[in-house]
């Protein structure tokens, strides 16, 4: 990536732009890619993937399968989304054919991989769709992609993994696990002087250079499988190098704050409030184009506890009429409410061309688990205008349609030309034709 502006003029430009016009931020976004932005003011596409862990209450979350199209009756569990019904699509019958893990709602959700695909290994995964998107969309933003998750073990029905994201090698990618950490990464300004930060970057490079020296020595004499293991280390160092290269480019560009600027979240946030703040931070970060790809592995156990439940998320997922089903339905409602709030936020943010952030973003909420231990018909809501979907409908695909067909469609719909993803066998054409 090249920049036509030298540091001093870039700074000058920034100063003048903020002094002269109080434009909403996205309109002044062009400082990084000034010439390009001026020529083509089309806002870029964004992706948000929200993984909710254990499945939903099937009796009250899914629309009737016979009641398809635009006039479908919104089920009770989705009631809080009523005002957005024209801007969202519910899709039924999507599934990952290989997943047999009844407690893994996220591990293969965005990958569609077969755990046992590799003989001699008891676990295998492939790249997740968010990372495919990030490869195209993440080049011009400060962060290629941002993964969010929560602190603590897997008590929420996600399965192995550190986030929803799996890199090109199918290895788990780390996440920011608290709203405070996310806030600082996205919005906190590093107050150290520029010279100091330049020196720090140089130092970090020589740190990498130093550990690589040792990695090369370590590699000697290793067996093939051990070398593969060590490759994760090399890969990590390469990633940091790329990140540093990017950081260098962005060094003199201050982190942008939307108006109103987010404030540092309370450290003790848990459950519903934690999720809500994460949603707000995502909206704010998308607004200032800090990244274009988010994935969020949401807490469920602490979510239902923060709503007053005294049972575990797993216990809830095995609901039967009575307390457990009540909790499960309350959770569905709260989840719909949170999503409605997120949509509100995205709709309220204007882009340079007059469209809203929502118009250019694709948000997917779902899980690999339908409800209880069912893995067919993964709960799936897609919303936002980023992928050009004809929203407002309830679509029932053929039974066992690969979930990856949806991911493939979203990629292509967002201008990321792809032939396949995971076990996809085609696009979900009905998404785009009313």
């Amino acid at each position, binding site marked *: 990536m090249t920049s036509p502006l030298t540091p001093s003029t870039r700074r000058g430009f920034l100063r003048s732009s903020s002094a002269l016009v109080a434009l909403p931020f996205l309109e002044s976004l062009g400082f990084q890619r000034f010439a390009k932005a001026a020529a083509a003011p089309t806002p870029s596409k964004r992706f948000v993937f929200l993984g909710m862990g254990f499945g939903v209450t099937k009796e009250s979350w899914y629309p009737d399968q016979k009641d398809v199209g635009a006039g479908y009756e919104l089920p009770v569990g989705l009631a809080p989304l009523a005002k957005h019904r024209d801007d969202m699509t519910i899709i039924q019958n999507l599934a990952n054919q290989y997943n*047999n893990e*009844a407690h893994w709602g996220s591990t293969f959700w965005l990958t569609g991989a077969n755990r*046992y695909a590799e003989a*001699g290994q008891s676990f295998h995964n492939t790249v997740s769709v968010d990372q495919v998107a990030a490869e195209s969309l993440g080049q011009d933003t400060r962060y290629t992609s941002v993964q969010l998750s929560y602190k603590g073990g897997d008590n929420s029905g996600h399965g192995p993994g550190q986030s929803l994201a799996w890199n090109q090698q199918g290895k788990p990618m780390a996440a920011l696990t608290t709203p405070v950490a996310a806030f600082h990464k996205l919005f906190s300004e590093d107050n150290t002087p520029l010279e100091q930060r330049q020196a720090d970057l140089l130092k970090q490079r*020589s740190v990498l250079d130093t550990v690589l020296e040792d990695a090369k020595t*370590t590699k000697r*004499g290793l067996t093939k499988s051990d070398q593969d*293991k060590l490759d994760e*280390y090399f890969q990590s160092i390469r990633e940091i190098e790329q990140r540093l290269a990017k950081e260098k480019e962005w060094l003199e560009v201050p982190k942008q704050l939307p108006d109103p600027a987010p404030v540092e979240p309370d450290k003790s946030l848990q459950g519903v409030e934690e999720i809500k703040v994460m949603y707000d931070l995502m909206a704010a970060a998308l607004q200032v184009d800090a990244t274009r790809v988010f994935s969020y592995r949401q807490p469920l156990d602490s979510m239902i506890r923060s709503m007053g439940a005294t049972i575990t998320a797993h216990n809830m997922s095995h609901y039967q009429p009575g307390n457990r089903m009540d909790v499960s339905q309350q959770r569905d409602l709260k989840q719909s409410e949170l999503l409605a709030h997120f949509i509100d936020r995205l709709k309220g943010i204007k882009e340079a061309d007059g469209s809203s952030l929502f118009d250019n973003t694709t948000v997917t909420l779902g899980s690999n688990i339908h409800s209880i231990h069912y893995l067919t018909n993964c709960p799936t809501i897609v919303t936002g205008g980023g992928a050009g979907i004809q929203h407002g409908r309830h679509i029932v695909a053929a039974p066992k349609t690969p979930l990856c067909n949806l991911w493939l469609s979203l990629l292509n719909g967002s201008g990321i030309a792809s032939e396949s993803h995971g076990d996809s066998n085609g696009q979900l054409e009905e998404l785009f034709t009313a």
Partner: protein
Amino acid sequence: MIRYRSIFLCLTALALQGGRASALEFAEVPEIHGQILADYCFECHDSLSEKGGIDLESLSYRLDSVESAETWQKVLNVLNSGEMPPDDEPQLKDGEKIALLRDLSDQIVVARELLSDTGGVTTMRRLNKREYENTVESLLGVRIEAEDLPSDTNSGGFDTNGSALFFSADQFEQYLKVAKTALDEAFLFGPEKPKPITQNLEPEVSLNQFYEKTSAKLKENFDKAQAWRNSDGSKPPKHFGILDEFEVRFVERIYNQQYATYRRYLDDPRSKEGVLLQELFNGTSFVRVKIPPKALPGTYELKVFARPLKGAQRTDTYLEYGFPGARSGEIERLGYVRVTNTKSADEPVVLKVPVTKNGKREILIRHRQHNNRDAARATFTRYLAKEGFGPEPKMLIDKVVLNGPHHETWPPRAVSEIFFKGMWWKQPDESVYAREIIERFANRAFRTRKPADSFIEKLHALYESETAAGKKFSEAIREPLAIILASPGFLYLAEPVKPEKQGKSEPLSDMELAVRLSYFLWSAPPDQALLEAAKAGDLREPGALRRHTGRLLDDRRSDAFISALAHQWLHMERLDFFQFDDRLFPEFDDSVKESARSEVFETIRHVISKRRPPIDLLNANYVVANDLLADYYGLPPVEGGHFRKIPVPDDSPRGGFLGMAAIHAMGSDGNHSSLVERGVWVTRYLLNDPPPPAPPNVPQLSRVRGKLLSPREELAAHMEEAQCAQCHQRIDPVGYGMENFDPAGQWREVLHLEQKQGRRVVKKKTVEVDASGSLPDGSAFKDFYGLRKQVAKHDEAFTRGFLEALIEYGLGRPYGFSDESLRERLLKRANTADGSMRELILAFVDSEPFQLKK
């Protein structure tokens, strides 16, 4: 990864009986089911029709490839979900279906396991989180909680499994950060050993002032409210100093809730003597000890002068202490201690607390309780309703004497080992010395391998640029040292092979063996004695390895091994899944829960160190407990928080895993016990015969809705559907035997059933516990004692399960079929000695796979 490995046990057993000692080569669906497929499936799925692309006629009965396993998995899935045969086609008879489902799910487990068998190849692993913390501690002398590093157990297997221990870019940065924090803590010293400070605290003084102020305020507001109430009503509350009527009611309510209790507290003459520990409206009273911000890090002693008050039971005489928690009313628990002097508070109890540079500097001391404010408030409210004020105080803390920091040596040993020629404050040629320090530290950190000169050069160059940037010697040296702690040579337990040996196995070098042994038993690097033995080439002398293994096992550092192995083998994270309801289980607070957890580890430690056989863990006439747990179990009282053997009579439910509170708590959700969870746990870990994983897409039972049934009756419904029956037939009857234990592991004779609508109880019933049931092999039992006896008969299966876990943990890869002969050899070898758990571990260390790199 979830370990599915038990089914093959029975298969193996069969194979062995049949004289085939070789490991299984493939999984196979018994051909007897061919008829079922022909009868019910071929109409659509034979070679001719191939409906849906599925041809069952030519499908091999052998599950010998990823593809054939996949197809059979699909067959199992559609049968489980009831999708096939279609509703309008003839359905399988229940008996046929149960048999087919059972064989299919078992064989798929076998196939998955076979197909993912590594064939004995261990993937090089990096230090896991525990090992990283321990290793940094052994090098720097400070303990850093690497809480930002991702958990290594997320993938479900052991945290020593190399192939599941990933590495990411963020992790590299976390390692650097943790190492720097540790170095900052470690190098926080001056030439002078810090002089301990002493502070005497009379904690009641400020607390009484605070309560006086609070109660005066309550009274003042209440009086204003009453003044308005008693007025003619012509003037608004505001005139009397209260905002509005809402505020009036609020003021009255909190006055009624709290005032009497505060007054009672303050009017109690004992409150002038010390802090009375009791529940108050906003949590409990406690003592707060502040460690001055400028006080240097180290171990501090708190002498607590306390005594129990009149009416206190033995169980009321425990104090707990810790740092302030995230929320008011919570603590980050450090431990508990019993106050044994009953008459006066002359003899203090002594608490030792660690103080670090960046850590918290406040210690809270209170009577033991559930760790949340709501629990205290609920207790308070219950008393208030009955008595008009809160509970009576149970203990008094007269004063606390703070003394510290204490350091055994000065400068700390780990620091003087780094600055091996003298500390940083008096060095003539710093640059030369820095290089020596870096090289020496890297040598130690890398354990078995000498770091390359080029690496040392680069590290030294970094030191130089740090000093060029104006940093002092002791600061500049931290950068290269931290980088060493994030380098592959440190992070990976590499065991390189010679080029000509690639693809074959090769014995570990003595140094590699020492490292493998100490990480196996200590999760930490070798100590001096082990290193010296390895360097001298003595480790493979007759008896030497055995001697060192015994020595490492008897050292307390092997707690790392015992707790990590037991925690992961027995799936003990379940103990932390649930919060126990403080109203239902007031005694089961964190102090008891942690003691119950330790009981599992300490019992295993006892069995290992006293050369006892594994069967002691299934049935024993003793428990290994501390004072608190002995009280909780109603055993004769003992003194002291350490664990020791306490004999119990044969008719005691305690003794062995099945009598442990932790085990029963793991089989509950904090409110209710779960027959299924407990049954699965016993079949999986004690009988080493785990059921297949919970299958997806099985239709939910609906018949039992709305009825008030005992858990046993509820589960009877499991037997009605073939998909459920095939597994639950094996699991549930085992679980019945443990019905006498409530969720917190206390004995019960009856069950109180409730049916709720929202929060309202609509139906209630009490039923007697019926603990009769049977094991999967059909052996029946009448009650819990019968279950325990039957389970103990399977001690050999249990021992095999332990060995499988040991092999998996110790070799750092999933246990596979190819390990069966190893397992059997170890069993035989230990049995030729005394068959003790200790001999099993010794035999494993002495085995080829442990001493080879492959």
